[in-house]
């Protein structure tokens, strides 16, 4: 065990910090629209070998060898600087790795460069109203008619569906095949008559997701990734990339820091919250969980640096379930610390967040309920841990 980064990486970090002093832009560039400024700085990052590191230069990346530790340093330093680096949008983060692995040469050339440049935006079409944790039961259909796929059905929980140029999605193309074998992975232009997008309001009142309705929408036959009926495997590859993004190591810790900042301002029973033994103890209890997340993350990073991912399969399966619970703990206490101010949505806004526009605690509290549902409900995660992680037998299945 050795938590020092070593001289080579210290140099890398120093150079990177120097580079990041270039953000925010200055001079004439500072007057450009925000999106344009981001595009410029991201381009410089690609040229410097910091952004889209592993994507070949031919497709618009910087063609660097894989190096999870450099990735971590980049994440830390870009995060600290608040600078635009690797986009977290679904196109660059999920579709591009999938195309690199399974796309045709033509698809790679056509889709990857504009996606990385931010000129082509994507949304993901997986979930359906009837298919949540049991995703493979999806019903939206694709029928090959001449040179086109004809699409019908509905997708839900689609971020950015209102603005995206394209969707990558799963459709049932072989209705006769078994559940998992009848699905194809298609790329679909969003701006067409057969597609209608409706905002999906969350219980918090915000509308960050959309429903997408397909009514004889079309996409050319060649816009399929992988073979017909193999879409399920293709999408697993995407999910693998999602999982491989170990995630921002500071994500939970940042939330805990915000909780602490809130606790410094809050009152309990008319006295400062931090003078209350019960509050302090709840904070320290939560900090135990937060540090557990943080150190688990560090452990997975280490394994990935050394190519020993298999040795941390168990913690990798467990992380989502755990961090979901910890996030809920954090915002539950934050909500409690509001006292009766929790009765109103936006009343409380002391300087508790790092960024200048702190979302209300109430919003965070309500939002913290989401992860237990999204991307495979917590009960599904428990099945996976029990069966794949601990070798327990599968549930008895009903006659099918």
């Amino acid at each position, binding site marked *: 065990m050795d938590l020092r980064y070593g001289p080579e990486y210290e140099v890398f970090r120093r150079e990177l910090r120097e580079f990041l002093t270039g953000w925010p832009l200055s001079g004439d560039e500072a007057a450009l629209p925000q999106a344009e400024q981001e595009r410029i700085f991201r381009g410089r990052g690609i040229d410097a070998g910091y952004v889209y590191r592993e994507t070949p230069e031919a497709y618009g990346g910087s063609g660097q060898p894989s190096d999870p530790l450099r990735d971590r340093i980049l994440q830390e330093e870009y995060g600290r600087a608040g600078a635009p680096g690797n986009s977290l949008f679904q196109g660059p983060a999920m579709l591009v790795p999938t195309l690199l692995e399974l796309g045709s040469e033509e698809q790679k050339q056509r889709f990857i460069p504009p996606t990385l440049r931010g000129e082509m935006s994507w949304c993901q079409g997986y979930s359906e109203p009837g298919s949540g944790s049991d995703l493979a039961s999806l019903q939206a259909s694709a029928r090959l008619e001449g040179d086109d796929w004809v699409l019908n059905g509905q997708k839900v929980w689609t971020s950015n569906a209102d603005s995206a140029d394209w969707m990558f999605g799963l459709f049932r193309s072989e209705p006769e095949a078994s559940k998992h074998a009848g699905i194809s992975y298609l790329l679909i232009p969003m701006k067409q008559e057969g597609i209608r997008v409706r905002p999906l309001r969350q219980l918090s009142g915000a509308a960050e997701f959309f429903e997408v309705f397909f009514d004889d929408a079309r996409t050319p036959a060649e816009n399929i990734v992988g073979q017909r009926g193999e879409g399920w495997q293709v999408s697993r590859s995407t999910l693998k990339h999602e999982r491989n993004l170990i995630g921002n190591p500071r994500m939970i810790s940042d939330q805990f820091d915000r909780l602490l900042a809130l606790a410094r301002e809050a009152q309990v029973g008319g006295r400062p919250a931090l003078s209350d033994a019960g509050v302090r103890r709840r904070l320290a209890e939560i900090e135990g969980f937060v540090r557990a997340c943080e150190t688990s993350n560090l452990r997975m990073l280490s394994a990935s640096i050394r190519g020993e991912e298999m040795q941390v399969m168990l913690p990798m399966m467990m992380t989502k379930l755990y961090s979901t619970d910890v996030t809920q703990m954090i915002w539950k206490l934050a909500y409690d610390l509001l006292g009766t101010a929790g009765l109103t949505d936006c009343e409380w806004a002391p300087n508790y967040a790092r960024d200048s526009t702190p979302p209300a605690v*109430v919003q965070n509290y309500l939002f913290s309920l989401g992860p237990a549902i999204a991307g495979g409900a917590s009960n599904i995660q428990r099945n996976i841990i029990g069966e794949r992680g601990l070798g327990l037998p599968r549930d008895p299945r009903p006659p099918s």
Partner: protein
Amino acid sequence: MHFGLSEEQALLQETLRGFIEAECPPTRLREIFDEGAAHDSALWKGLAEIGLPGLCVPESEGGAGLGALELALCCEELGAGALPGPLLFHGLATLALREGGAAAQRERWLPALASGERVASIALEGVGGSIDDAAGRPALDAAALTGVARHVPFAEVADLFVVALMDGGLAVVERDAQGLVVEAESGIDRTRPLGTLHFDATPAERLETGAEAFDVVRDAALCALAADAFGAAWALVRMTVEYAKTRQQFGRPIAEFQSVKHQLADMATAIELSRGLYWYAAYACDHIKAEASQQAALAKAHIGDQAVEIARQAVELHGGLGFTWECDVQIWFKRALFDRAFLGTPDEHRDRAAALGGY
């Protein structure tokens, strides 16, 4: 010895339940909720026809002369139906007038409140943030009230407010009194909007025995909120049971998955067995004064926590749907959040209960 509902009490609940089912079914509730117009005058008129605004008003002033227990029993039904409207707070205001008002004060205000012709609300929280913290409340100097009261339910609708004072007493302020400015708050529960009252030398009348009445109203309020949360939590359990029976995943209703079934069993157990807690506390308000404050604090804290935890699980068991605005679960979830936070969080009431319990 009977720790259960009398026929009259059961009938009271049934009547109100029937009214809500008929007049404010989920479709109507959803309309009111989305419009944000929580005071529906037709609903209020209907409630007045079955005598509910006068529930706690003495018979001599045209009411039913009932107590904190009957108010709480009604609140269970209000919570179960997530009924929009000021009935809970109106009931507490009439209780304050009954307990704290001189004869002339009672005669002056109560009849119109009993009939539902006028609507009353309570303003017990100042800027201190703690229910027993009098220092942050508005002050009454001669007959002029100055200060701020926050989180006042139906502040934009009520004709009359019972306001807790810095000196521990209570005062009555009319809606159209000079120097009263009402500012809407962006409340979390759209079935019960809130507002802030700003008083600037506003004419107000002190209730004769307001200090004693404050304790009575506070304890009855905690019971009423506990009961509302109890009703809301049971509604969420029922809703989730029905959803689990019909929602199919992996080829069978999710209710067949043992972990779902056990989660539902735990939710139902947690709420059902706390019924006696609010019953007893409300009964104590009416009949066992010495126990009332502690039992009310325990009931509010306990049921408030249980209800929100049940709501959280109800969201989770509804899957993606539960996370949407469309799904009615959110209406009850926010109802439970309101009941838990209004007039103080569980922690605050546990601190009070510990002190009142002598430990």
